[in-house]
């Protein structure tokens, strides 16, 4: 039989739960469907005692359920109690498998466990985590069959079957194997899905015999054994060699989660583009393109708990036909108030959208979100907005008035209402290429890198427009500042954006050169084949160009250009470019002079191939995408680890660098330490947007970090880790003289940890000691001068100094 409700809420995450609670409060008929046997599975799966933040702090909470920063347990309890007291109609273990709108009728909702519902409105609060895949065999819900592992330490002496071949499964298995007898079950015949380290780890463990592995095996059923027998349960599985049975105490299945997108699309909701980061377009009332189907929370592009809860509240209000001022209204009002002629938020928003073509493509809701992140700035005429070579990368759209772009002292370009700037640094991740000064009555929207990238990712049109402008400006500023966009229209037309993976060749030595590449993102190495060996001659960071040699003098490529890292170049067609050169004689001269410099530099490098080796070694260590990398000369390093101690001491007791680790070549050692990448991988997915780049280029983590660990996972160089604030140490002298407490670099005895695991952990990484005068402590603390920090531009010079 099918039950009928007014509102069906799918997913009991913050958003869904809050909606249900509101409905319950209002006495609206509703049902809350949750696949897991408990509320808000995502947060439930946080590791024990994890401290949960309530970003953005400024946003007021509006929900019948309580929420404020605190430990996972406290928050979950608060919600459970709230749901209980409000008598929310919640159904656990109901995984919604299908939703479709019956003609003119209500939505029909089918659950994987067979239950069916009908509802006039559906609120999707299923988040992005998706649902954990279960074993999908009988006995999958036995109490000892679990789908996550909070604390491997809590089991010992048990026989545990781990199902899965992903990183989670491997990490669990290895951790459990320390004091348990572990068997891992892999559906395939290898662990190819896992990270290298994990793969080696598990293979080693299997070889040692500390973990037993069944390859090409899949569980058939799990069943409980009678009390008193030696093991609690038995798992039957079919392998390529036939059936097998394992007696075990516990089964831990880490089969990943089913990504929700397919499901959402199945419900008829459309996504703007293929980009996995993109989210469905929704109205200001959170209504999707499917009438009556609402989306709240992360799925709607709102990753933060508080936002989601507010949406849950609001969406119910909307459904009830009540008009609610969005929670962010006061915030927006506050933002707009210093905008001249401000009346109402909506008016202001309209104005922005009207004036700035770029923003005309986005939904009002996205715009609100966009504005919350952004700042309205109305600088006085003549005020500097940013300086050349600043390391800021926010994006500016001019709502009113004009600004002056000062490419060089004698040349200023004027941008007017509707135009935007700051896209260069945004895209290349490098220093500002020009100084910008405010003009008369200028009003503009300053948008941080992250929200801008989000916008670019989700709205194709925005991307296209920005790219177009970028190309135009890049060519202008790089080649012929004299001419105007119109004059170089043909070149722009011919220009294409090309993408290269690390190691791809842009062009090869000896090819006929038909194009010139302007590096837009990433960097290239110029190398030459000398005596059958490829010798790196130079390093071309973003903002520079290659391939002009072939266009100028000889027509053959004199060297090979390779992408040092994932790189985007603007490819300018040779013919069009030659025309441009012909038109502008100054450009010819300029190119020739740069050409000469480059040739001499290359010759110098050819004189000492070892230098080239060092560069290619560094590039191989991913230094190509660095802006500032720590190098240690091992012929000077006395292994005193004072750098690590210094780092720990100046950064609350945890060192952000590991001297020993990392490769060495020709006495040059690249320790594990942050390189402050042009496009920091850590910034990719930071819910509270806590990772920023300081004006001098340091990538640092602000205090509003919520300790989610995304950056730790995203960093390919493993230089970020989670740490809790250590207790203060006794004074240095009392240690020096009496050995009181723990010395420099030694982890202090943490009383808090002993008490409970609930110390708040946050991500820590190198901030290049931006708050300390005189530069990074690691370098300053090196007694022998072995440690230095340099930027890739200096590699050639460095290589020469290592002769």
């Amino acid at each position, binding site marked *: 039989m099918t039950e009928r409700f007014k509102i069906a809420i799918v997913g009991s995450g913050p958003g869904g739960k809050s909606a249900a609670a509101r409905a319950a409060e209002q006495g609206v008929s509703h049902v809350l469907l949750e696949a897991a046997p408990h509320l808000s599975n995502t947060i439930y799966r946080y590791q024990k005692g994890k401290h949960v933040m309530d970003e953005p702090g400024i946003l007021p909470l509006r929900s019948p359920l309580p929420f404020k920063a605190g430990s996972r347990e406290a928050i979950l309890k608060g919600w459970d109690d709230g749901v209980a007291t409000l008598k929310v109609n919640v159904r656990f273990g109901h995984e919604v498998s299908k939703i479709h709108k019956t003609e003119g009728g209500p939505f029909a909702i089918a659950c994987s466990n067979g239950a069916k519902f009908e509802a006039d409105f559906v609120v999707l609060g299923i988040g992005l985590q998706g649902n954990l895949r279960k074993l999908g065999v009988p006995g999958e819900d036995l109490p000892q069959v679990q789908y996550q592992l909070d604390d491997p330490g809590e089991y010992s002496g048990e026989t545990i079957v781990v199902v899965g071949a992903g990183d989670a499964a491997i990490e669990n298995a290895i951790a459990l194997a320390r004091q348990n007898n572990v068997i891992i079950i892999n559906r395939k015949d290898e662990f190819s899905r896992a990270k290298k380290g994990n793969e080696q780890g598990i293979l080693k463990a299997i070889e040692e015999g500390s973990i037993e592995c069944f390859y090409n095996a899949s569980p058939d059923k799990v069943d409980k054994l009678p009390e008193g027998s030696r093991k609690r349960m038995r798992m039957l599985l079919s392998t390529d060699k036939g059936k097998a049975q394992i007696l075990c105490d516990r089964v831990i299945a880490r089969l990943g989660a089913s990504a929700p997108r397919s499901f959402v699309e199945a419900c008829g909701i459309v996504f703007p583009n293929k980009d996995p980061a993109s989210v469905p377009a929704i109205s200001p009332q959170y209504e999707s393109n499917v009438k009556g189907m609402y989306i709240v929370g992360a799925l709607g592009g709102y990753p933060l708990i508080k936002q989601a809860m507010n949406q849950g509240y609001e969406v119910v209000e909307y459904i009830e036909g009540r008009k609610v001022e969005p929670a962010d209204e006061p915030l927006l009002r506050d933002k707009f108030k210093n905008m001249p002629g401000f009346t109402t938020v909506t008016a202001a928003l309209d104005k922005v959208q009207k004036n700035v073509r770029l923003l005309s493509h986005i939904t009002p809701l996205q715009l609100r979100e966009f504005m919350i992140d952004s700042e309205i700035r109305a600088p006085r005429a003549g005020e500097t907005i940013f300086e050349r070579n600043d390391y800021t990368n926010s994006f500016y759209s001019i709502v009113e008035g004009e600004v002056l772009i000062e490419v060089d002292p004698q040349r200023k370009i004027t941008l007017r209402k509707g135009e935007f700037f700051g896209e260069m640094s945004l895209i290349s991740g490098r220093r500002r290429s020009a100084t910008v000064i405010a003009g008369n009555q200028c009003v503009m929207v300053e948008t941080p890198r992250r929200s801008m990238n989000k916008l670019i990712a989700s709205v194709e049109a925005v991307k296209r427009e920005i790219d177009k402008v970028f190309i135009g400006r890049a060519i202008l500023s790089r080649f012929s500042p004299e001419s105007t966009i119109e004059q170089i229209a043909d070149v722009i037309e011919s220009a294409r954006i090309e993408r290269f993976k690390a190691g791809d060749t842009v062009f090869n030595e000896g090819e006929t050169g038909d194009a010139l590449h302007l590096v837009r993102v990433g960097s290239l190495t110029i190398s030459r084949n000398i005596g059958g060996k490829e010798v790196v001659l130079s390093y071309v960071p973003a903002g520079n160009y290659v391939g002009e040699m072939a266009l100028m003098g000889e027509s053959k490529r004199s060297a090979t250009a390779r992408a040092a890292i994932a790189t985007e170049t603007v490819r300018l067609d040779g013919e069009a470019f030659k025309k441009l050169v012909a038109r502008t004689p100054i450009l010819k001269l300029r190119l020739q002079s740069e050409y000469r410099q480059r040739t001499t530099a290359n010759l110098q490098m050819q004189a000492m191939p070892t230098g080239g080796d060092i560069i290619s070694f560094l590039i191989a260590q991913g230094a190509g995408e660095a802006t500032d990398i720590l190098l240690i000369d091992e012929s000077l390093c*006395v*292994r005193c680890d004072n750098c690590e101690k210094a780092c720990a001491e100046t950064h609350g007791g945890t060192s952000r660098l590991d001297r020993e680790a990392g490769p060495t070549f020709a006495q040059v050692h690249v320790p594990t330490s942050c390189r402050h990448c042009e496009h920091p991988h850590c910034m990719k997915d930071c819910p509270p947007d806590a990772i920023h780049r300081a004006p001098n280029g340091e990538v640092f983590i602000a205090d509003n970090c919520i300790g989610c660990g995304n950056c730790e996972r995203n960093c390919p160089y493993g230089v970020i880790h989670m740490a809790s604030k250590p207790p203060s140490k006794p004074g240095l002298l009392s240690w020096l003289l009496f050995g009181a407490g723990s010395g420099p670099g030694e982890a202090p005895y943490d009383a808090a940890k002993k008490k409970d695991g609930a110390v708040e952990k946050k991500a820590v990484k190198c901030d290049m000691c931006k708050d300390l005068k*005189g530069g990074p402590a690691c370098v300053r603390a090196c007694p022998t001068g072995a440690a230095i920090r340099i930027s890739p531009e200096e590699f050639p010079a460095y290589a020469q100094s290592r002769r």
Partner: protein
Amino acid sequence: MHDSFLTHARKRWLWASLVLLSGALLAYAWHDPIGPANGGTWLGYTLGTIGALLIVWLMLFGVRKRTYANRVGSLRGWLSAHVYLGTALILVALLHSGFQFGWNLHTLALVLMLLVIFSGFFGVFAYLRYPALMTRNRDSASRQAMLEEIADIDQNALALADGIDRRIHAIVLRSIENTRLGGGVWAQLTAHDSSDLALAQARQMLEKREVEGNDAAKLSTREMPTMFAMVDFLAGNADDKQSEALRKLIDLLSRKKSLAGRVARDIQLQSLMEIWLYFHVPLSFALLAALSAHIIVVFFYW
């Protein structure tokens, strides 16, 4: 780019100390005190004050090294100054003493100071010489990695040996038991491979047992050093399959031996770079005591 502490800031501190020295020497040559030259003359007091302040300052290096937030100069600069001014101290102190020596507290202070400084010289030598050796020896593998490889080799060796002969297995087992890297101060400094030591012990025990006439396992002493035992076995009764495996085993074990050697060497270099500090620091504190006593005493009995 990299700049050693000796060449720091274009040898600024070298020049500083040279100026100090020449100044002191000139003053000493020109100065003509009432009575013999010693710490009692005005120049003596001046040099003495300079020397004492220098000593205290030089000892503060230990503190500066650990106050990482300190922005006064870079640590490299401090070390540079520490080395050069410390060297200059020798002459300053000698001139202060007016080359009067005796069996007394005052000369004791001088001697302690010289000991400290010369232990420091070894430190400089070590810092200049050993790091490069260490890197070469490690050959871009961390010590941990080498140890792990050794452990792996042990496992494989056991597996192999087991396939050959129980005696070989026993031998390999023993050689594994006996591989202990590191050890006491001396062991570390001399990079001495304690497995040989263990071998000797085993030999002793064996002989003892034979004297006791214990019939348990009459093993010939030929089997003592693992390698030779293998070769003998190879020469003697072994079919092709065995000897094949045995060859593999021997390769493994020799690989292991070289690895063990490198780890030992690594430990040695590391300890050589540290050992001098264990004299430098305590001696400098002895010096501090002697110095304070010296200063108090000369004014106590004015």
